């Protein structure tokens, strides 16, 4: 497959760009015309957030071969950094009610705070990476998982309360709805609350794609395919692994900031390992090693869990017939079964290692059966 994909023609790439552009235009138009309470926008906002986090995880797991389970920890760092530096001064007394308004007594503009969120997460990743990245596959996974738990405990420690508000909720910071343009009466004139997260997420993912196609990206893939061979070819293993780990965490941090905006509140206790598993499963469903797959499956995953499969959790009566089994929790059972099927029988996920432009390239040979 890949050998044919290498014979590049410009057309599929241009087609892909057009499709992405069309999606953005569609989002913009939909937002101006549909009621803002529609579940569609919830799915799009959360989907955009998860897409970024999933791609950042894929950069590590799929492209560099580092099996990290620390994503939730870095998202937590990003979300907290963003929230701490953007809560309006007038609200600090009420948010930090047990800590006299906290010690941070200034605010940063939203874009700056988001970048800072990424940087702080990357910094944490750099520190953690020093000891952890020397470990091999599953030991690395469990060590990063452990670090995520440690980060969570530190952020919940009451002694750090003036900075982190202890284990209490951070809230009242700018969220996605603040991107809407309002007139003097507070009426929304242009809806941007979905488009902006799309743009942020899209920009970050574009940066990741560019990285993957750069010399660094090729080095990452070499490490994934064979560490020892890569080292023999003169790739500095420690340096590149640390780089991939920090960059991935940078984007996870921005993803965390977006999640904070989506949720409108942040609390350390929600960033558990279960969140990491969820993102990992998204990556697996989309295809480990495919950016397009991660993006696509993020939206699919969010849409199913928030919207399309919700009916499985409620009693449904068609005519006089009450559909059996349907009650609270059934959605998740169906979900897990689908995931197990993908994990066991469609190991390559939706996209395998293919990207969007690959879909428009002629298939010279039929790809072999999966699994």
């Amino acid at each position, binding site marked *: 497959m890949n050998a044919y994909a290498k014979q590049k023609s410009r057309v599929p790439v241009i087609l892909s760009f057009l499709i992405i552009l069309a999606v953005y235009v569609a989002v913009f138009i939909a937002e101006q015309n549909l009621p*803002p*309470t*529609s*579940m569609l926008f*919830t799915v799009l906002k959360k989907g955009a957030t998860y897409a970024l986090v999933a791609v950042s995880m894929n950069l590590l797991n799929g492209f560099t071969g580092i099996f990290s389970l620390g994503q939730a920890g870095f998202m937590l760092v990003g979300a907290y950094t963003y929230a701490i530096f953007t809560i309006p001064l007038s*609200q600090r007394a*009420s948010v930090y*009610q*047990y800590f006299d308004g906290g010690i941070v007594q200034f605010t940063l503009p939203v874009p700056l705070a988001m970048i800072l969120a990424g940087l702080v997460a990357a910094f944490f990743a750099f520190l953690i990476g020093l000891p952890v990245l020397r470990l091999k596959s599953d030991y690395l996974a469990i060590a990063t998982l452990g670090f995520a738990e440690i980060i969570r*405990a530190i952020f*919940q420690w*009451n002694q750090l309360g003036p900075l982190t508000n*202890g*284990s*209490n*909720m951070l*809230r*009242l910071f700018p*969220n996605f*709805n603040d991107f809407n343009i309002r007139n003097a009466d507070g009426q929304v004139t242009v809806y941007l609350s979905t488009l902006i997260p799309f743009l942020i997420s899209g920009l970050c993912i574009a940066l990741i794609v560019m990285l993957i196609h750069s010399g660094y990206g090729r080095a990452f893939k070499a490490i994934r395919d064979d560490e020892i061979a890569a080292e023999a070819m003169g790739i500095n293993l420690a340096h590149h692994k640390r780089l991939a780990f920090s960059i991935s965490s940078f984007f996870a941090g921005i993803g965390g900031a977006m999640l904070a905006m*989506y*949720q*409108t*509140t942040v*609390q*350390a*206790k*929600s960033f558990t390992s279960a969140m990491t598993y969820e993102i990992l499963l998204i990556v697996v469903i989309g295809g480990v090693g495919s950016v397009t797959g991660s993006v696509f499956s993020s939206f699919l995953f969010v849409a199913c869990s*928030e919207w*399309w*499969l*919700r*009916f499985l*959790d*409620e009693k*449904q*009566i*068609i005519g006089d017939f009450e559909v059996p089994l349907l009650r*609270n*929790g059934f959605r998740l059972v169906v979900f897990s079964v689908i995931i197990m099927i993908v994990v066991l029988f*469609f190991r390559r996920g939706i996209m395998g290692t293919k990207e969007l432009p690959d879909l428009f390239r002629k298939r010279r040979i039929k790809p072999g059966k999966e699994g």
Partner: protein
Amino acid sequence: MKKFLSLLLVVALLLPCIALAEDMPVVKIGVFEPASGDSGAGGKQETLGMQYANQETPTVTIGDTEYKVELVYADNGSTPDKAPSAAQQLVSQQVSVVLGSYGSGVSIAGSQYFADANIPVIGVTCTNPQVTLGNDHYFRICFLDPFQGTVLANYAKSLGATTAYCLAELGNDYDVGLVNYFQQAFEALGGMVITDTFPTGNSDFTSYLNNAVNYGAEVFFCPVSIAYSTQIVEQAAAQGVTFPILGGDTLDSNVVVNAAKGKNIKVIITTFYQEGANTAFDEGFKAWLNSDSEAMTNNGGNDMISAVSAMGYDAYYTALEALKAAGTTDSAAIKAALPAVTLTGVSGLISFDENGDAIRTSAYVKTVNTETGDWEFVAEQSVD
């Protein structure tokens, strides 16, 4: 696979269209309550109160038209990270007014979504002051934690305690807030307070009980979710502690009573309602529980009335009053009408102050009778 999926999607999208084709217009009231998680048992009991009220009064006359009241449920899972999607679910179904929630953390977490959609919310038993502070869409019909904390501190003092050990779940706004107000009040009375926290999901409380013993605590204050309080009561009894366990309104549940029954342990709580305060409600509610097996299961298997059920019942009627006063199902008009709403509920007189909080001046103190396995009324307490 893909075909199957797309078929599934089509079915999912069409399903809501099939439902409901009746003549009477419908007004939707959202129920924003936990049905699972640490507070699930309490959320279900609170919902029961609303369901009972709904089957007692299934219609409401708004303006000149009679509307059928439909309760729309969303499970906020007892955790702030699941609350947003539950809130959005209600918003997207265009409910006119929302009731809930049981806990304060989920209420705060869901608040912004209701604010953005301009939908008023009537908090039922979320006692943390932050829920209604600084917004105009959140109301509540219960007392607040500064009040409850003071009542509990006074009561602890009256037991002769000078050292109190407080335990809260990390990151639970309700626990942390109530412990904080208790501490302020108890220290003002000259007592000493030691606070500790445990991580979410913890089930080993023996070491925390040891801590209390080692600090020489004379009272153990743990206003935590039902899931944790039952374990604390159970393990405290097994360890043979001598201090009484003091709790807030979350402990008012038959699950806690069952944990304490037949054991040598003293459990004292403050709450909103005491069985027997309104016999008409008590009898009607019990009869309904006994006639509906699903309701009985949701109530924890027996027909003991939890205060949160009474509160849920009152919340439902508050919403109906607001709908009548607004004269329309438009949520913005209901929000405008709510501050002036008053009614006499089973848990007492309900009216709102400028913050949207209920004006409440008394709380009930109850204790578990470990022989019969019932709540026993101790006192009605108020604060000057």
